[in-house]
Every structure is written in structure tokens, then in C-alpha cells.
């Protein structure tokens, strides 16, 4: 019997109830299930229900929560847009918005240019290329928290690698306060995010480079194009779609980053590295203000929406 297990139970029930007409009903049921749309929805229903329960419901519940004020103990009270109004006059909220934008912009530019460089270097012939590619991707594979802990030790003011090297080589008499000073703390988290995300750009752009037909470069060379000219007018235009998509992805991931800052600085010193995600966490989990935390998280939706619209337009254009 090759019946669809997804309808097994209803099929069996039907068979049991009208055993004397089982052939007719079973046959009709089978024909019904074989219709394209019926079959599709039978298969689609379980995963859609799952996503609805664990993705759709939390999302809308989060929207609902953002209209309530709820302290740790005590019942929630409806406050309308009160949480958003509170946020609008909260200097730390605006600081975290500014930090998130600075962090995302700087890290994305660094990753995109560095990744393009990595891809161009890797797009040459050399021995052990496959192993090199695998090694270069390691920062992206290793669990973020674990490599971030290593970075915390590298940044350690007294015995960390950076300050030991700076002081012992005589470049500086006193080490840098990598995570203790507001400007340097921001620079430090940008460095770690770039370190981790750069290979994603590099390897994706490399894959894009490998799809450019050799003939394009050959004919450009015959037409007298210089190395720069070939890069500018052949390589770069062919890579733009890849760079666009990878950059959009990366902006989304960076904008909503949480674990790196949570581990490295916890938002400090004095909130100068708080991102919107870590601020939402510290409000809802640290202080127990679920409604306010949800409101911070929801304030990121317009950015996500804008990026998604851009991406959809771009994909549609092709």
C-alpha cells in the first residue's frame, strides 16, 4: 500500500465506518489526495502550524506585550503607546540606537571591503587552496561566544596579547584600555564582529568571482583594458548582485547582534557599547520590564522592513 501517511488516520477512520463501501471511498479519497493542491497543503500544514505557533504567535504576542507595563511582580496594566513614549525620552535608548547604527555601518564597510580583498586574493591558483579556504572560514564556524571569550583575553588590559605585544615591542609604554574606554570599546567590538564575519563575505564573493566567464576577461584584455580597467568594468559589475545580497544579510545579522556585546562589554562602559538588542535584553531580563523590552525590540522592525523591501525589489528585478 502506498497511501499517504499524512492522511492515514482519516483514511482508516473512513474505511472503518463504511467497511462495505471501503473500495469506493478509499479510491475517491486517494484521487482527492492526488490532486496537486490537496497534496501540497497536506504536506505544508505541519511545518506551517509549527511556524505559526513558535514564530507567528511570539511575534504578535510581543507586539501585544509592548502595550503593557509589567513589573516583575504585579499584574500588567495597559498603557497604550506609553512604553514607546517612555523610550522616546530615554537617553540610553537613543544612545543604543546610535551605537547600533555606528556598529553596523563600520563593521559592514570593513567586512565588505576586506571580503572583496580576500576573494580577489583567493581567486588565484596556488597549492593547498581548498585547505586555505577551510581555514579562513574557521572564525565564522566556531561558536561566536567561544571565540569572543578568546578576544576578551586578547584585549585584557594587563596580560592580554595586544597590550603585551605593544608594551614589549616598545611601541607604547602603557597598554591600551581596549574595553574600558568608550571609543576603544566601540572599536574593539567592531574589530571582533569584522573578524568573524569577513570570511562569509570573502567566500561568498569568491563563489561569485568563479561564475564570471573567462571570455569576458579575455575580450577585455584584447580590447586593451588594464588590470584596474578589467576590475572596474568586468569584475565589479558582475559581482554587484552577490555583494548586494551578502551585504544585506550581513546588515541584518549585525544590526540585531547580541552575543558579542553581551560577552565582551555587557554594554559598558557607561552604555557606550549598548546595542538595541542588548538594551532590550537588559530591560526585559535584567530589570524585568517585559513591555519596555518588547518595545525596544519592536523599534528595530522598521529597519528590518526597509531591508526586506529593498531585497524583495532587488530579487524581483531579475
Amino acid at each position, binding site marked *: 500500500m502506498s497511501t499517504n501517511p499524512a492522511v492515514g488516520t482519516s483514511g482508516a477512520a473512513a474505511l472503518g465506518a463504511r467497511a462495505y463501501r471501503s473500495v469506493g471511498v478509499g479510491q475517491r479519497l486517494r484521487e482527492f489526495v492526488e490532486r496537486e493542491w490537496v497534496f501540497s497543503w497536506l504536506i*505544508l500544514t505541519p511545518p506551517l502550524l509549527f511556524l505559526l505557533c513558535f*514564530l507567528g504567535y511570539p511575534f504578535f504576542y510581543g507586539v501585544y506585550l509592548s502595550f503593557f507595563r509589567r513589573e516583575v511582580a504585579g499584574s500588567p496594566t495597559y498603557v497604550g503607546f506609553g512604553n514607546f513614549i517612555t523610550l522616546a525620552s530615554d537617553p540610553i535608548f537613543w544612545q543604543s540606537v546610535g551605537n547600533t547604527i555606528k556598529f553596523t555601518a563600520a563593521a559592514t564597510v570593513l567586512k565588505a571591503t576586506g571580503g572583496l580583498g580576500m576573494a580577489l*586574493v583567493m581567486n588565484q591558483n596556488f597549492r593547498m587552496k581548498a585547505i586555505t579556504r577551510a581555514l579562513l572560514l574557521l572564525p565564522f564556524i566556531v561558536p561566536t561566544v567561544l*571565540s569572543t571569550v578568546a*578576544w576578551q583575553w586578547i584585549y585584557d588590559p594587563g596580560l592580554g596579547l595586544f597590550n603585551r605585544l605593544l608594551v614589549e615591542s616598545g611601541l607604547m609604554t602603557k597598554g591600551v584600555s581596549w574595553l574600558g574606554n568608550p571609543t576603544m570599546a566601540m572599536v574593539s567590538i567592531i574589530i571582533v564582529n569584522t573578524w568573524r564575519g569577513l570570511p*562569509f563575505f570573502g567566500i*561568498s564573493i569568491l563563489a561569485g568571482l568563479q561564475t564570471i566567464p573567462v571570455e569576458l576577461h579575455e575580450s577585455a584584455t584584447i580590447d586593451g583594458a588594464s588590470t584596474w580597467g578589467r576590475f572596474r568594468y568586468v569584475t565589479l559589475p558582475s559581482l554587484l548582485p552577490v555583494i548586494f545580497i551578502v551585504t544585506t544579510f550581513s546588515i541584518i545579522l549585525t544590526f540585531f547582534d547580541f552575543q558579542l556585546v553581551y560577552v565582551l562589554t555587557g554594554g559598558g562602559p557607561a552604555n557606550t557599547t549598548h546595542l538595541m538588542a542588548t538594551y532590550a535584553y537588559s530591560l526585559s531580563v535584567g530589570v524585568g520590564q*517585559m513591555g519596555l523590552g518588547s518595545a525596544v525590540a519592536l523599534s528595530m522592525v522598521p529597519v528590518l522592513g526597509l531591508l526586506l523591501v529593498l531585497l524583495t525589489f532587488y530579487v524581483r528585478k531579475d
Partner: protein
Amino acid sequence: MVGELTWRKRLFGLWLPLGAFCVIALFPFTWMAATSLKTNAELYDPKANPLTIRHPSLVHYVSLLQETNFLTWVANTMMVAVVATGISLLLGTMLAYPLARMRFRGAPLLAIAVAVTYLVPQTLLFVPMADLIGRLKLGNTLSAVMLTYPTLLVPFIAWLLMGYFKTVPKELEEQALIDGASRWRAMTRVILPLCMPGFISAGIFAFTLAQNEFLYALLFLSRSDVRTVPIGVVGELIRGDAFYWGQLMAGALLGSVPVALIYSFFVKYYVAGLTAGAVKG
């Protein structure tokens, strides 16, 4: 002359930048390894050269395995990652197959919805999700993360698999149907077996993502014996005193090894999955 020119071009265009990229990518790992192998006396001696190891010792590994729940965390992480990946592959396939190969009303809209959910970050969901898990009484159980990780993985897997499913010619399925097979049989016996590389790519990718997950684990798992490696390391190996870096680095390194090992066996598939979206899109 020409030989010298290409030699120089090779040095500045390939070997030097390549070397720099490798050093940047790998030095944190070597620093991790070097730290974990030094005794505290050497580690905290300001006169010792930080780049060499004078007296290699496994003392931090021994204390990590004896004094903490590290092995439990590794087992938890593995179990969670395997179960979450399994559930996600099953649900992702059920989602991707009709969307990639069937015609029915609403299919294009649904495909866009899947792409959008793929890009919805968990940062948006963690507050209500914590509430939901609390009400389901799943706090401090591995089921909490086994159930929530697929919400991050299913849309991605579905998206990746749709690309693979579309590459199988329609005729194969039609032939199977003409031969009397049901749609279910055509799917499970004819089409899906041809998409093995897609399943491996999606599986490996989901597995590394599940190993990497931090926020949900941090929210849902606070008891030491149910923790996964990332939150165990951050929550219990970072302590107030100054003399913990050796053990911490040993934990970070050992925690990275399983992922790196599995990744190294399937690099090809991992890269295929990583670049599929960007290059095809």
C-alpha cells in the same frame, strides 16, 4: 626580467596578503591553545614571553573536566543540535517540496513569507518566547531549545532546499506518476533521494547554527546540568577572580573542536550551502 616581475607580482599579489588573512583569521585560536597549555605561574608572569610555552601542561584541561560540568554541556549541545537539526530537516523538507515543485494558489506568496521569516531575527522574539516557554513549563529543560531552535532553522533550510528541489526535472516525477506511483511515493522514492547534497548542506549548516546559538539557551537554561557549551562557558567559567583564563581557554578550545571537526569533513557542502543563497539569488 619577466620571471622576476611575475615573482614579485606573486609575492605582493598573493603570498603576502594571503599570509596576512591567515594570520588574522587564526591567531585567536593559537592564542587560545597557547594559553590553555600554560601553567598559571607562567601565564601570569609578566616577564615570560607570551608567544612561547616553556612548560606545557594539561592542568587546565584536567581541572575543566574534573571540576566543572563541561562534558555534560558537550553532551547537551550535541543532543540539542542533532535533534533540532533533525526536526528542522523534516519540517523544512515538508515546507520546501510543495513550494518548489507544485502549482497551487498562494504558493508564490507563501514562498515570500518563508524568505521573510528566515530573516526575522530572534532578537525580536526572545521576550515573548521566554514567556511562552515559561507558560509551557519548559524552563530548564533541553526540550525548550530543541523546540525553539527549529524556528531559526526551518525557514533557512526550506529556502536552501527549494533551490535543490527545483533542479530536479519535472519529467522524472511525471514518469513516476504515469507508472502508477502516488505523489507521496514519487516524492520519497524518486525526487528526494536525488537531492542528497542539498540535505547534507542544509544539515551541516543547521548543525553549526544550533551549536552556536546563545540567546535562547541563555534565557531558558539556567541550571548547570542542562546548559549547553556556550552558556556553560560564559556562565560558569568566567568567575570573579583573575586566575581563570587557562581553564576558560581550554573550555573555549574544546568546545570548538566538535564543530570544527564536523565542519572539516563536510567543508564542500558547507560552502555550497553558504554561497547558495548569495550566488543563486
